[in-house]
């Protein structure tokens, strides 16, 4: 019994964790390059989920295809948000620390707008659809095909992003910007363009994650929030801008959630996530996670 449980749970944790990794990767791009606190990130995930849902329901497009469209649309949203709102904020601020605080509020406003816009357009009934719902059994382990696809896609995406950041010139530029903004400018990185790219990729990844999630979870306009929290926990645990550690942290969070819920009860799911959230935030300020805040 416990063997079955741990195999099943392991698979579940991997799936949940891999999705967290993708979402957190997107957040890390926005957060890491520009120190903007994207409180709307989970809501972009929600938009991606709705995109895939409607494309499947209306034209029968499989989510593994529509995720590209979801990613593209969300990337476009990212570009719009950057050009419309944040370019001004990034250029204008006198004190960099006010930027973080202001960005949090602005993104929170965006989050409210996205949630309620979705509620207005799609109403609040939870949506779901069935796709790839066959089950594959390996020994005692039962895995639904859609979850396997989710995991596989997330892993492939991770590899692509990793390679991009490692070998492509824009990827390197992004990493440079995360490490040291001024130095990056001095060596000729086009800050403006890289920031735009970070926004686009960051939002795009969230959209794709939403598509993946839509295969297995219910979709509501307000589903995004827990993902935002999870993404922040992951990014902070992994260290700002540290992408490898961020991946590990995402996986870790997935495991904590699945095993934590299994050990206690499903209603403690939120208590756990927020508990980890506040502990992580506190530890971060106390230097444990390598992030001693300057005043």
């Amino acid at each position, binding site marked *: 019994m416990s063997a079955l449980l741990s195999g099943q749970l392991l698979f579940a944790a991997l799936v949940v964790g891999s999705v967290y990794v993708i979402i957190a990767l997107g957040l890390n791009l926005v957060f890491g390059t520009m120190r903007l606190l994207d409180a709307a990130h989970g809501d972009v995930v929600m938009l991606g989920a709705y995109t895939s849902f409607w494309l499947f329901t209306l034209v029968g497009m499989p989510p593994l295809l529509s995720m590209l469209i979801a990613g593209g649309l969300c990337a476009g949203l990212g570009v719009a948000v950057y050009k419309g*709102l944040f370019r001004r904020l990034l250029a204008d601020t006198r004190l960099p620390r006010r930027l973080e605080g202001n960005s949090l*509020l602005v993104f929170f406003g965006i989050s*409210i707008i996205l949630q309620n816009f979705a*509620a207005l357009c799609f109403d609040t009934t939870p949506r779901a659809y069935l796709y790839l719902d066959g089950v594959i059994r390996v020994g005692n382990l039962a895995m639904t095909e859609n979850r396997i696809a989710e995991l596989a896609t997330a892993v492939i995406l991770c590899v692509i992003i990793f390679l991009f950041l490692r070998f492509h010139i824009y990827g390197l530029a992004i990493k440079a910007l995360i490490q040291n903004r001024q130095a990056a400018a001095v060596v000729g990185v086009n800050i403006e363009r890289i920031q735009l790219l970070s926004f686009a990729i960051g939002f795009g990844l969230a959209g794709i994650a939403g598509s993946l999630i839509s295969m297995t979870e219910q979709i509501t306009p307000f589903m995004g929030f827990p993902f935002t929290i999870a993404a*922040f926990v992951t990014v902070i645990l992994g260290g700002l801008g540290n992408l490898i550690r961020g991946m590990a942290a995402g996986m870790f969070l997935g495991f904590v959630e699945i095993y934590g819920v299994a050990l206690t009860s499903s209603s403690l799911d939120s208590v756990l996530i927020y508990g980890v959230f*506040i502990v992580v935030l506190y530890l971060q300020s106390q230097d444990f996670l390598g992030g001693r805040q300057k*005043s």
Partner: protein
Amino acid sequence: MTPPIPTRAALIFVGVIAVAALLPKLGNEYLVAVALSFAMWVALAQSWTVLCGMTGYGSFGHAAFYGIGAYVQALAWGVVSPWLSVPLAGIASCLFALVVGYPALKVRGPYFVMLTFGLAEFMKYSIIGVEARLGQFSRLIIGAPSPNELFLVMLGLAAAATLITFVVAGSRFGYGLRAIREDEQAAETVGIPVARYKLIAFGLSTFIPGMVGAVMAMRLSYFEPSQAFDPLISFNIVLMAMIGGSDDARGPLLGALFFVGLSELLWARAPQVYMIVLGALLIIFVLFAPQGLAKLLFGKTRPRAS
């Protein structure tokens, strides 16, 4: 050090309260309901300003203190008289704040914002869990005082909160808080006991919200955790502070007025549009008028030496 009280403002203040106290006599239930709502938001926003506006430690989780107050009231109903349970609710909130604030206030800037938000949600889900364990999904308050009576109490709370903020803003303590907002380390260097002051401000900012929660629990006649700890409460407070301004007692008044007006116009008819407008307002004010309407309308006027 108490601030000089401008006589004209004091007279207006007392006058408004006196008139408001007579409102129930008009017999218009709707009017009393709106006025109660306004008084509630004034009380909450003024209290919030004492900590957040003045020190810059923007709490995004004040719903937690409102909720704790409501919970205490729900638990104490029928056991003790409201005259006792309401102040008790305030004390409970305050104690919680002091305990939690000690580590929490070591976290700076936007991380404090996120921390307080997380804390409020954590409290919410914890209490939902506890209540579920106890077999309760909501608690009823039967035989609560009338809306008119509750309105008068809320009016009192609003007046008290406004007074507290006014006194703090113009006092020596207020100078200290503002210095903390500007530069915490430099403030410490000139002799301000930073950690202690932050904690005092935090406690002060949660006492009245606890009582507000208790009063509202009676007003609604029931307590339900996800409602009492609704993050929207925190969001609304922050929004009012952004719109109205949060450096002294005038801002929250303007913010609450604006907010209640908007809410009466839109909320019942088109709740999603209403929320979208709120979100847009937050963005607009953060980007274009971060110090709120108070700054726009009144400019900078603080008492001067000469």
